[in-house]
């Protein structure tokens, strides 16, 4: 008997469901960054606002990468519904704390997909996920560095203005 399921789609139902969950997560992440950009802009932290606009775009790109992968492999990619996007923050620092939390949660969730792929010996998807792991290294570094600025520069006096100025300059250029 023909193995029609495999002929039609490379992904197992479980991996497909996990990637669809990830698509939702990336979309949610993008929406949260946009909300953070709005908050920063409203409160006079324009450089940080721009930084979060860029992050929002990046998350959207990640979402589409997952989306197209599912389709290319013969699966069903689901355009997610996004709710629960926080609009207000208590402080400038809180925004960055939540940004780091967001990135950590994305990394963990991709690790979870990879764990499932190893179990199923889905090496094709693992190879696809490797790009994201490298990307997450950069994302977590940037988020952690931004938060570090609060400790290094300090929030007193013109501290927050300095922090805002330096957030846009954070880069990660490790070739490792």
């Amino acid at each position, binding site marked *: *008997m023909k*193995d*029609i399921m*495999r002929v039609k789609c490379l992904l197992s139902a479980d991996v497909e469901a996990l990637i669809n969950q990830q698509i939702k997560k990336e979309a949610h992440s993008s929406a949260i960054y946009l909300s953070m950009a709005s908050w920063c802009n409203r409160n006079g932290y324009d450089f940080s606002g721009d930084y979060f606009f860029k992050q929002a775009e990046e998350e959207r790109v990640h979402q589409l990468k997952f989306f197209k992968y599912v389709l290319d492999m013969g699966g069903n990619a689901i355009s997610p519904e996004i709710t629960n996007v926080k609009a207000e923050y208590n402080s400038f620092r809180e925004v960055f704390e939540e940004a780091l939390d967001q990135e950590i949660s994305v990394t963990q969730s991709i690790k979870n997909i990879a764990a499932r792929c190893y179990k199923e010996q889905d090496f094709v998807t693992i190879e696809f996920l490797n790009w994201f792991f490298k990307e997450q290294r950069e994302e977590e570094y940037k988020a952690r560095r931004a938060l570090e600025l609060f400790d290094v520069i300090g929030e007193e006096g013109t501290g927050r203005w300095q922090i805002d100025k330096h957030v846009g300059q954070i880069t990660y250029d490790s070739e490792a």
Partner: protein
Amino acid sequence: MQNLTIRTTVDFNEVFSTKHGAIYQSDAENCWYIDFAGKLARFDYRNILKLKKAVYQIDIEDLLLNSVKGPDLEILFICACDHCYVLSLIQIVALKELLQGTFVMLELNHIIQDRLCRLIG
């Protein structure tokens, strides 16, 4: 199961059957035929997955426990598919059992293909 005769000349493989119905695979047409609730319906790859999702989504426990006064009927309408099912609760349980068995058998077939047929001897 109803008295539907399947012509043996047609390339059909029984994937799974219960006393309430059966699912056959046609290798020539790349599709499945579901013999259930008094009809034989053809489902292609997309549609059988949609049917699976629709059936699995029904909260059987809730239907059993809620005390809403209404007929115990569920209408399964699959988008872009010619067939629709109007099923009682008992039939839903039976169809779910049939589909679960089928997908386990398809998974088993996948493993067999991997281990035996896709090997170069």
